C-alpha cells in the first residue's frame, strides 16, 4: 500500500469516525430528548386526568348533596322515620333521580343500611350496605373511588355520600359517576394519545377489565405485565409496548394507580402515547444524520484524496527521484517547494544527487585515466617486447653493414627473418586488441550446454595430464535432460575455454576442476558452474575481475574475463564469481533458454560484474593471457 493510500485511508477513517460519532451522538441525544418530552407529555396528560378527576370529585358531592336536599328526598326521609313506613313505594325512585342529576349510581339507603332504592341495580333492594353505616363524617369527605356492584357486574365509581337526618334516623344518599369508557371519552386528549382504564375489580388480571373510550381494549393481554406490577406495587410506572415489529407501532404507557378509601388499588389509568411521531422524527433525524455522514464521507474522501495527494506529492517526487538515482540517473533533481520538512528533505536530496553526480564524474574521469594508463602500459609492454628485438636486429644489421663483414649476407638474411617474425608478432598483438574491440554478435542456434562443456573439457584433456605438470582432475556434473538454449555455440565455447584456462592457471600445483550444469525450473534458466581448487582471489580482485585490460599477470592482456562477460551478457545471461582464499574460485553463469533482448555492446570500463560474492580472504583471479591461449592453441594443433 502506498503512502498516499495509507494517508487517504487514515484521513477517511478519522473522518468517518468523527462524523459517525457526531451522528450517533446527535441521534442519541435527540432520542433522549424525545423520550423526555414524551415523558413530560404523559405526565401532562396524567395531570390533566387528575384535574378532571378533581373537578368531577367536586361535582359528584355537589350532585349528591343536591339530591339529599331535594324536597322529595326530605319527604322520603321523614316518611321512613315513621315506625310503620312502607319503603316499597320508593323502590323505583333512585333511577329517575339519578337520571335527572346525570349520575350513574344512586342509592337511597335506610338507617340500617338496607337499600331502599338503587339506580344501578334496582333488584338489589333490601340488601344491606355495611360500610355506609359505619361511623364516618360523610359531610367532611368529598368523594372517593369505590367498587360498585351493578346488575352488569362490578364497576369503578367516583362516589359521594350525603346524609339526611330526621330525628335519630338517617337516610343515606350515595351517588356517583362511573369511571368507564364515558369518562375516558370525556377526556380531551391530543392526537396520538389515548387513555385506558384498568378496573381492578377481580382477584386476577382480567383482559375484559381493560377499557378505552370505545369499550374493551384490544390486545389487553399485552398489558398484563404492567397491570400485574401495578397490582403488586401500586405506583406510577412506565412501560413501552411494541404492537408489531415496527418500532413506530410502539406506545409508551404511563400508569397511575387509582386508590379507594382504604388505599386499596381499584384501578389503573394508563396514558398511552404513540411513538409513531417520535420514531418518525427519530428516523428523519437518523436519515438526516446518515445523509450528513454520507455527504461528510464523500467530502471527506475527496478531501482525504486531495490532502493525501498534496502531502504525498513531494514525497512521491522524492521517491521517484530516489528510484531514478537507484537506476543510475544520478543527475535527478526533485522540484519541491516549501520550507517545511519535506522541502528541506527535497533540497537535501538535490544536494546529495548533485554531490553524487560530481563524485561519479570525478570517479569516471579517474577510472578513465587509469584505464588509459593501463592500456598504455599494456600496449607499451606488449609492443616493447617485439620492438626490442627489432631494434637489436636493425642495429646488428647496421653494425654488420658498417663492418662490411662477409657474414653480412647471412646476418642480413637472419635479421630480416627476425624482423619479419617480430613484425608478425606486432601484427598479432594489434590484431588481438582489434578483435576485442570488434567482438562479433552471437549467431543464435539451438545449443546443448552439456555438449559445449564436454567439447571444452575434451579440448583440454591432453593438458590435464601432461607430462611434467601436476595433474588436474576434471569432474563433470552435467544434468541429464538439460534443455537446449538459443545461443552461439562458438562464442560460448570460447568463453568456457577462457574460464577453464583461468582455472588451470589458478591451479599450478594441480587440483580439481569441477564443471556442473543444472536447470533451474523456477526461472527456466540453465546454470553452469566452473570451480577450481586454486588459491582463490581477494575481494578487491573479484571486484575488478571483469574490468577490461585489468590483470595481475605479467603477460596478461586483461581481456579474457572481459570477453567472457561480454559473451554471457550478449546471451542475456549473468556471470558471477565466488572465491575464498585457499579454497578456490567458482564462476557461475546463468543463461536463459532464449535471450530476451539482443545483446548490445561491450560493457564500459565502469561496469561492475552483475553479482559479486567475494567472501574473504580473496584469491587472485585473472583472465587467461593471450600467450597461454596461443600455447594452448599450439598444443591443440600438435595434439
Amino acid at each position, binding site marked *: 500500500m502506498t503512502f498516499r493510500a495509507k494517508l487517504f485511508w487514515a484521513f477517511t477513517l478519522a473522518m468517518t469516525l468523527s462524523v459517525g460519532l457526531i451522528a450517533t451522538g446527535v441521534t442519541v441525544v435527540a432520542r433522549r430528548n424525545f423520550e423526555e418530552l414524551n415523558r413530560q407529555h404523559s405526565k401532562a396528560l396524567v395531570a390533566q386526568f387528575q384535574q378532571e378527576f378533581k373537578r368531577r370529585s367536586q361535582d359528584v358531592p355537589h350532585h349528591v348533596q343536591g339530591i339529599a336536599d331535594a324536597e322529595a328526598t326530605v319527604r322520603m326521609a321523614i316518611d321512613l322515620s315513621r315506625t310503620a313506613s312502607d319503603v316499597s313505594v320508593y*323502590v323505583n325512585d333512585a333511577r329517575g333521580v339519578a337520571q335527572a342529576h346525570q349520575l350513574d349510581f344512586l342509592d337511597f339507603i335506610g338507617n340500617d343500611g338496607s337499600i331502599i332504592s338503587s339506580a344501578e*341495580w334496582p333488584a338489589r*333492594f*333490601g*340488601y344491606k350496605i355495611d360500610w355506609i353505616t359505619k361511623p364516618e363524617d360523610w359531610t367532611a369527605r368529598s368523594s372517593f373511588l369505590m367498587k360498585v356492584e351493578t*346488575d352488569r357486574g362490578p364497576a369503578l365509581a367516583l362516589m359521594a355520600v350525603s346524609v339526611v337526618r330526621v330525628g335519630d334516623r338517617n337516610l343515606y344518599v350515595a351517588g356517583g359517576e362511573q369511571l368507564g369508557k364515558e369518562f375516558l371519552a370525556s377526556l380531551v386528549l391530543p392526537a396520538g394519545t389515548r387513555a385506558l382504564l384498568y378496573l381492578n375489580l377481580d382477584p386476577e388480571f382480567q383482559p375484559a377489565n381493560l377499557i378505552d373510550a370505545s369499550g374493551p381494549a384490544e390486545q389487553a393481554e399485552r398489558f398484563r405485565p404492567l397491570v400485574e406490577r401495578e397490582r403488586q406495587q401500586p405506583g406510577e410506572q412506565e412501560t413501552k409496548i411494541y404492537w408489531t415489529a415496527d418500532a413506530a407501532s410502539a406506545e409508551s404507557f404511563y400508569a397511575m394507580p387509582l386508590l379507594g378509601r382504604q388505599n386499596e388499588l381499584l384501578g389503573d389509568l394508563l396514558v398511552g402515547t404513540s411513538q409513531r411521531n417520535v420514531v418518525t422524527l427519530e428516523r428523519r433525524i437518523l436519515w438526516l444524520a446518515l445523509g450528513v455522514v454520507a455527504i461528510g464521507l464523500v467530502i471527506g474522501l475527496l478531501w482525504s484524496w486531495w490532502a493525501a495527494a498534496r502531502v504525498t506529492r513531494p514525497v512521491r517526487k522524492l521517491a521517484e527521484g530516489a528510484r531514478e538515482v537507484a537506476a543510475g540517473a544520478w543527475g535527478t533533481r526533485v522540484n519541491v517547494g516549501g520550507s517545511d520538512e519535506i522541502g528541506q528533505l527535497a533540497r537535501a536530496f538535490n544536494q546529495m544527487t548533485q554531490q553524487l553526480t560530481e563524485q561519479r564524474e570525478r570517479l569516471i574521469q579517474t577510472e578513465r585515466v587509469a584505464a588509459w594508463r593501463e592500456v598504455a602500459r599494456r600496449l607499451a609492454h606488449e609492443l616493447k617486447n617485439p620492438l626490442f628485438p627489432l631494434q637489436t636486429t636493425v642495429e646488428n644489421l647496421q653494425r654488420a653493414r658498417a663492418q662490411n663483414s662477409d657474414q653480412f649476407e647471412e646476418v642480413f638474411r637472419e635479421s630480416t627473418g627476425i624482423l619479419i617474425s617480430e613484425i608478425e608478432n606486432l601484427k598479432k598483438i594489434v590484431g588481438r586488441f582489434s578483435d576485442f574491440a570488434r567482438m562479433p554478435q552471437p549467431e543464435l542456434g539451438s545449443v546443448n550446454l552439456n555438449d559445449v562443456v564436454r567439447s571444452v573439457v575434451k579440448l583440454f584433456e591432453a593438458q590435464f595430464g601432461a607430462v611434467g605438470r601436476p595433474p588436474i582432475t576434471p569432474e563433470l556434473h552435467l544434468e541429464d535432460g538439460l534443455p537446449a538454449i538459443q545461443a552461439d555455440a562458438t562464442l560460448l565455447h570460447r568463453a568456457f575455454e577462457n574460464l577453464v584456462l583461468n582455472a588451470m592457471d589458478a591451479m599450478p600445483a594441480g587440483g580439481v576442476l569441477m564443471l556442473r550444469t543444472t536447470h533451474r525450473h523456477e526461472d527456466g534458466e540453465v546454470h553452469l558452474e566452473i570451480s577450481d581448487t586454486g588459491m582463490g582471489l581477494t575481494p578487491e580482485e573479484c571486484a575488478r575481475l571483469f574490468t577490461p585490460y585489468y590483470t595481475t599477470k605479467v603477460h596478461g592482456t586483461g581481456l579474457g574475463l572481459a570477453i567472457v562477460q561480454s559473451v554471457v551478457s550478449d546471451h542475456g545471461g549473468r556471470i558471477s564469481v565466488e572465491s575464498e582464499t585457499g579454497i578456490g574460485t567458482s564462476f557461475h553463469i546463468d543463461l536463459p533458454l532464449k535471450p530476451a533482448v539482443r545483446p548490445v555492446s561491450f560493457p564500459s570500463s565502469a561496469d561492475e560484474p552483475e553479482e559479486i560474492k567475494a567472501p574473504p580472504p580473496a584469491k587472485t583471479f585473472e583472465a587467461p593471457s593471450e600467450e597461454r591461449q596461443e600455447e594452448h592453441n599450439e598444443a591443440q594443433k600438435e595434439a
Partner: protein
Amino acid sequence: MLRQLAATSLAFGLLLTVVARSETSRRPHFGGTLRVEIGARVGSLDPGVPANFEEAAAKEQVLALIHNHRNRDKTYEGAGPFRVSVWEPGKSVTLAANGDYRGGRPFVDSIEIRMGRSARDRLLDLELNNTDFAEIPAEQARHASERGVRVSLSQPDGLLALVFPTGHPAAENARLRESMALVIDRVALVNFILQKTGEPAGGLLPQWTSGTAFLFSTSADVSRAKELFAQIAPSPRLALGYDSDDPLEHSVAERIIVNAREAGITATLDAIPRSGRAVRDAILVRWHMESAHPRDALAGFLDALHAIGIDAGEPCGALPDAASPEQIYDCERSMVGTYRVVPLVWLPDVYGLSARVRDWKVPASGEGWPLADVWLDGEAE
C-alpha cells in the same frame, strides 16, 4: 225588586234542570262508545291462527265479545253482544252493539279497541280520560291508583313461576333447583316489584280457589340453599331466560339473580324475544288460570307444563274430572316437590276504568270482559 225576583227564579230553574239531568245520568242507559286500549296487536280473529301469550289473551277477549259461548275445546259459537264493524288487523277493531243478542242489547253502541298501546300510554290515557277501559300491569296498579286512576283488580289468578325444562344439564340438578327455590325471596317480589299487588306463591293454585296454598312455604331459606348448593361440584352456572318484552319478568329475573348470588349461585340473565322463546336452564313463565275451579285450573297448568316438556308424574297423571281436594293437593305437592316448577307470585288482573264506566264487574277466571253490561255515564263523559 222585580229584577231580583226574576234572577232568583232563573237560578232556581237552572238548579232544577241540573238536578234532573244528574238523576238521569246515574241510571243505566244506552248509547256511547266504549274506548278500550290493549297492549297486544291482534293480527287475526281466527282462533286457529297461532298467537303468542299476550296476543292470544287479547284475541280471546275480543272473541268472547262477538260470540255467545266458548266451548271446552276453546272454540266459539253463536252471535255475541257485539259484532265487528271495523277491523284493522294489528291496529284497531270497532265492535258495534248487536241488537239481536239473545241476552239483550248491550248498553254501549260500540266498543272501539285500540291495539298496541304500551302500558305507559294506557296509564296516561286513563289519567287523561282518553280511554275508558284498559288493562294495567299489576306492578303499576298501586302507582296508577296513587295517580288517581280508577283501578279494578281481579282475584290473583295469574301465576309467575320459574320453570326448569328437562334436557338442560343445570336444570337436571335437583339440588340446584331446590337451592333456587329456597333462595328466592317471594315476599320481596310482591312488596317491592309488584308493589304489594299480588301474593307470594308456593303452590300451583291460589289460596282463594284451593284453600291449601298456605301449606306451601313461600319464605326464603338462604342458609339451606347455600348448603345444598355447596354440595354441587363443580358449581354450575345457571342461565335464566325471561321474556324480553315483559318488564315484570325482567325485574323479577334480576331479583332472582340477586337472591341467587346471596347463596353463591352464579346465574346470568338471558333475555329471550317473545317471537321465538328459546328454552334455557331456567325460564320465567306466566300462566293464567283458565277456570276458577281448582281442578280445571290445575289441569290447565299441567297442560301448559306438558307443552314445554315437563310431565306431571304419577299423582297428577290420574287426576279425575271430579278430583278431590286431597288429590289436587297431592298433585300440586308432587309437582312442586320436583322443583321443576317454582311458583313465585300470584298476580291479579288489573283494569283501569274511566269515571264514566258504570256497572263494571270483575270477570271471573277464564271469563271474558263483561263489557256488554257496562254503560257510560254521560255526565262523566
